[in-house]
């Protein structure tokens, strides 16, 4: 005996209760939902898609929560996930030149962020090197044993960083959970800043010293927010950018899907319902558009028109309505022969009324499924266009494809910007496909799940 057979039969005494039950059980949407719910992957897809939409909607909140606005470019570049940026410690030039005083004040063995504006490769943290500190040759810049970001071992020897290319050093990513490190803002003799400050407001020296006057440990330092997913090559926070990228990707995908559906349905309905000349004309146009390789066209057009959001939506719509039109046309060709279409004509309904009131709701099932499934395709196209550098301008607008494009240069060394943006594209496309599959199974009465 299967589970279904053992279903209990409830006897309903109260007629009102019966009415409520029947209206609940036989409503179209509740039946749809109950069938949809059985499809586990579809539920996963629905949840993921909803999360993406919520992410896109609350993207501005991420600016506030993380403290790193979308356009913020820090000096903490290519930081791995869960890393905190350095904490600023302002050290006056006098103190700097007096390492003993400096050491007594901040403690020995303390690590500091070391950044240099002129040479971005000189980013890392290090300890004071007493040898070089006293060497006037290195006094201005190279006072630290620098540990390049991500490497396991300190560079022990006294180094002249001009000669170092960090890429050559061994790299490991054991330091994912780096605590708060001090960042030094250095002044030279005339009070100019040599080594540069981080972009956010950070505790000054008074905060570094605890209230009890004890030497602060690493953990006590700095409330600087964590870069949960790290930073990319420009110092943007990746998490924040992903949220903003979701916005753009979903705006493009949803508006293109709606626009192509609108155009495709209208043209496909006209072609399928009228048949003959109109049908032949539209089908030839569609075949013509299918035969044009679209990627070069996108590239050339976006090069000339400039990559703006509206332009991208426009171009995807202009080239993307063909699939929907063809599908609608096929359904209308078979549906217009249905008896209820004839019956509608016999009660004096106009062709437009028959098309859009009688036939369209009947062909809406495959249209909805097709729309859901095409979301993934549009996101892929948009991303690949951006990845090739022909999409929306990555400097002004954050997109997932644009992030991939930027991460392309250092994908072997710092893979996380590429990984996370790629993962977002992957998840969204997968979610839209799961959702489409689930909708198809739930909406198609012939498929008994």
């Amino acid at each position: 005996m299967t589970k279904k057979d053992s279903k209990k039969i409830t006897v309903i005494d109260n007629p009102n209760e019966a009415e409520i039950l029947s209206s609940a059980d036989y409503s179209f949407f509740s039946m749809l939902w109950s069938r949809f719910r059985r499809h586990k992957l579809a539920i996963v897809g629905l949840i993921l898609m909803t999360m993406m939409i919520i992410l896109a909607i609350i993207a501005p909140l991420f600016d506030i929560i993380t403290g790193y606005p979308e356009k913020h470019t820090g000096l903490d570049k290519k930081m791995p996930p869960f890393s905190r940026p350095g904490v600023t410690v302002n050290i006056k030039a006098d103190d700097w030149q007096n390492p003993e005083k400096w050491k007594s004040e901040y403690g020995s063995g303390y690590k500091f962020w070391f950044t240099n504006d002129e040479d971005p490769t000189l980013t890392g943290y290090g300890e004071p090197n007493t040898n070089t500190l006293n060497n006037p040759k290195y006094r201005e810049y190279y006072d630290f044993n620098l540990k390049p970001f991500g490497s396991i071992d300190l560079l022990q020897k006294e180094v002249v960083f001009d000669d170092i290319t960090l890429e050559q050093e061994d790299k490991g990513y054991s330091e994912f959970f780096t605590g708060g490190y001090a960042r030094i803002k250095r002044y030279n003799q005339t009070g100019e800043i040599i080594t540069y400050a981080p972009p956010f407001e950070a505790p000054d020296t008074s905060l570094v010293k605890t209230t009890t006057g004890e030497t602060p440990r690493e953990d006590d330092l700095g409330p600087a927010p964590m870069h949960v997913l790290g930073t990319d090559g420009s110092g943007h926070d990746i998490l924040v950018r992903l949220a903003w990228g979701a916005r753009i990707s979903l705006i493009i995908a949803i508006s293109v899907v709606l626009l192509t559906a609108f155009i495709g349905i209208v043209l496909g309905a006209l072609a399928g319902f009228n048949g003959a000349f109109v049908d032949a004309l539209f089908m030839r146009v569609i075949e013509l558009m299918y035969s044009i390789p679209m990627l070069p066209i996108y590239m050339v057009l976006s090069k000339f028109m400039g990559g703006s959001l509206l332009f991208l939506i426009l171009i995807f719509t202009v080239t993307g309505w063909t699939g929907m039109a063809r599908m609608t046309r096929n359904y209308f060709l078979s549906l217009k022969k249905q008896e209820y279409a004839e019956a509608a004509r016999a009660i004096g309904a106009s062709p437009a009324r028959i098309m859009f009131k009688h036939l369209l709701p009947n062909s809406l099932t495959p249209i909805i499924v097709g729309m859901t499934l095409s979301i993934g395709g549009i996101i892929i196209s948009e991303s690949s266009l951006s990845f090739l550098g022909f999409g929306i301008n990555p400097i002004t607008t954050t997109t997932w494809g644009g992030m991939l494009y930027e991460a392309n240069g250092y994908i072997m060394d710092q893979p996380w910007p590429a990984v996370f943006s790629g993962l977002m594209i992957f998840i969204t496309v997968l979610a839209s496909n799961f959702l489409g599959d689930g909708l198809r199974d739930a909406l198609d009465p012939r498929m008994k799940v």
Partner: protein
Amino acid sequence: MEKEVILDVKNLRTYFYTSDGVVPAVEDVSIQIHKGETLGIVGESGCGKSQTMLSVMRLIQEPPGKIVSGEILFHGENLLKIPVNKMRRIRGANISMIFQEPMTSLNPVYQVGDQIAESLTLHQGLRGWDLGYRVKSWGMFWTWLGMLPFSFLAPVRENARNLKKKLSRLKVETPAWQRTAELLKDVGISDAERRLSNYPFEMSGGMRQRVMIAMAMSCNPEILIADEATTALDVTIQAQILELMKALKRKYGMAIALITHNLAVVAEMSDNIAVMYAGKIVEYGDAMSLFKTPMHPYTWGLLHSIPRVDEPRTDGKLPTIEGMVPNPYNLPVGCKFHPRCFRATQKCKEIEPTLDTVNGRQVRCWNMITEGGN
């Protein structure tokens, strides 16, 4: 006393231009429909009886079909000459049609009440479901929200239920729905108010056919064309539907054009009968006398191939009409029926007979069966 002629079809020709050749589906057909009377149109499949009536409604698929010539006078106005939008106003309002397949003739996505009300909305401007549109969309929003599996959404579900009730009240209060409920009662559906919001799949075949009739009847048409309206139903339901149509005919005084290949149905319902063969009328006259004394061999054959309970049983085979319906692309020369006719002569093979009037009946035959000749 001759009743008023509502519909006068004169020399109608409807041809289908297919890639294989021209099919004369309707060839020189002239019929009259009188006020409050029933005209039965009988014939084998493909004899053009449906196409004649579709031509009257101007519902011929064009292309490949085309009404080549003839006149269709409805109250003296030629329906073939009037513009399309005027024709659209006549369809459903003055001439309406019931189709053969009750299972597929109703749109599966609309409630039956909406479908009946559509005709009223189109022709009489009675507003139906659209009045409750705002309530409907909000109700849908709350219903969807309430489907989320959270217990704290219980008030949302309650709200959705209330809106649904409000919507049903709103709907029932509109004139279109009241008239629709009245129509459903007329066609013998019990609990009409509740049935209005049923979808077609919730109804049986007989009920759907009743809904179809209600749809056709909604604007009190002068002519109701029933295109094999009872063919798909079982005999009990068939009898009920025919009885219903008779009752409605008496109540509203409309004329019925009954297209069927079931002679029993015609015998029960019709005042006049037109027998068609290969696109042409072969015999046309008063029902009683036609059944009593068929003059065309084809009619004779049809009537004699029905087994009768009131006649003594014979051991021989049941008489049939030999042969098959002629290929429409390649019709025989002369009388179209002569290859199957037991009275065929050389003249029949060469010259097409004309439609002659004998004793008030039109017969297309050279050797018609008369009282003495039989």
